[in-house]
């Protein structure tokens, strides 16, 4: 059974989080990065947690690997948002150390998903938002 993808538009929060979606709307995947130490931060950061410097949203790589995931059979989303099962994963992007991003994994079956599997992210357009969706690389490309 192929996995599904939830359709839940982000609620604009008038915080840094909005920038993530503003960029995906423009087909860009960007994350905050320290202008001083060059380390990446998670999407909700307002300044670098290590040195307090300001952050700039820079283009992030679209390849990474599955750090962990769950196959959801009973969802807690607004009614009508999704079918199940769907797979949501925490992804470590290549070269983006210390930060994990979320991605829905689209797979022919949920059983194909595994920790360590390589994932390529594409930006999928829904009616009101653009969502990063991960597709598994062939097993030969697996990084342990």
């Amino acid at each position, binding site marked *: 059974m192929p996995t599904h993808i939830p359709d839940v538009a982000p*609620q604009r*929060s008038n915080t840094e989080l909005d920038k993530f979606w503003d960029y995906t709307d423009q087909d860009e995947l960007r994350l905050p990065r320290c202008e001083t130490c060059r380390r990446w931060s*998670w999407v909700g950061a307002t300044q670098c947690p290590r040195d307090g410097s300001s952050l700039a949203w820079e283009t992030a790589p679209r390849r990474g690997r599955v750090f962990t995931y769950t196959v959801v*059979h009973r969802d807690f989303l607004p009614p009508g948002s999704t079918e199940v099962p769907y797979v949501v994963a925490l992804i470590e992007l290549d070269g983006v150390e210390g930060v994990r*991003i979320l991605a829905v994994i689209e797979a022919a079956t949920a059983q194909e998903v595994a920790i360590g599997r390589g994932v390529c992210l594409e930006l999928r357009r829904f009616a009101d938002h653009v969502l990063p969706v991960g597709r598994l690389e062939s097993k030969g490309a697996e990084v342990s």
Partner: protein
Amino acid sequence: MTDTRGAAIVGVGETAFVRRSDQRLNDAVFAAITLALTDAGIDAAEVDGLVTESSMMPQRVPADMVAARFGMSNRCFSAHSLVGGAGVVGAAGLAAAAIRAGLASVVVTYFGVDFGSSPGGPYAFPAALDVKLGYEAPFGWYGQPLYFASLAQRYRHEYGLTEEQQGAVAIAAHAHAARTPGAMSRGPITMDDYRASRMIAEPFRALDCSLVNDGAVALVLTAESRAADLPHATVSVAGAGVASALDTQGSYFTQHDPYLETPATRSAAAAFASAGVAPSDVDVVELYDCFTISTILQLEDLGFCKKGEGAAFVENGRISVGGELPVNTHGGLLAHAYLVGASHLVEAVRQLRHERGAGQVDGAEVAVVAGLGLPDHATVILTRS
């Protein structure tokens, strides 16, 4: 334990725990406080301190509302502890510290939930954080079972975790609940029942997950010196520790590193040090078991086994009453009721009073209570004096 100005839990009170209560949340809290004061044999007018957690009660049942209801005109100490379950358990430690410091003489700690009857239940509560609807929900990363299922999945990858080990936690909880008056569990379960339970978020089935309900709990604390004159065996707050990860409530579940280590490592170390006891001295553990993996992670982080050994630790009846280290002897959040750690404190008190009947751990003298409300954690050590 030799502190002459030590503090003790001298009264406990619980409402009925039901899926949906007709009682409003504040009335449930008031009822629990009345029961706890009656249990302690102390008049409400003597209460001069109120402590609760910080994420739900300040808005729903604030201290001023409680004081006004009971005519607590001598109130001189009020405080909020940490997030959720860490705050509920931490409140007992904070109340004891206030008594030892001379800031208050009789402190009530309280907590109640109406997750069973309120729209959205326990899932509506974190939605107040911008990150939930502003970033996470579009990925379907929504609802506490998913966060802990992802922890369990990573644990499986790093250390191994079998269906039978998860099931062992749930089976012990329901067996304990069956010996606990007022528990919501419908009775003991078998491994077949566990395996037949509906899948929620892999690797969690419904029986890996906390109950959802309404109810309230309160405790009364005062000086150990006075406790000797009160009705029950004295249960002292021998030690307490709190610790918080650097992550926020919004970032913890996606960003915390080390991912499988909770701040219980530090709260427990502080609590054991202040109590002057070691994990090997502990007779009974009541820990925050929102999901089966929570029990396994905290057994490790509290110091009862090494990281990665928790899954094997729960096997073969070790955590059952009669086993080497009984855990959640009332059934916990999985099988007793979801009172976010408050009933764990009550259960520890009853175990140390030796009033648990069929659920009694023989000769229990040292209990550990652990509350988790990430990014926070609290550990309290109680002893029978």
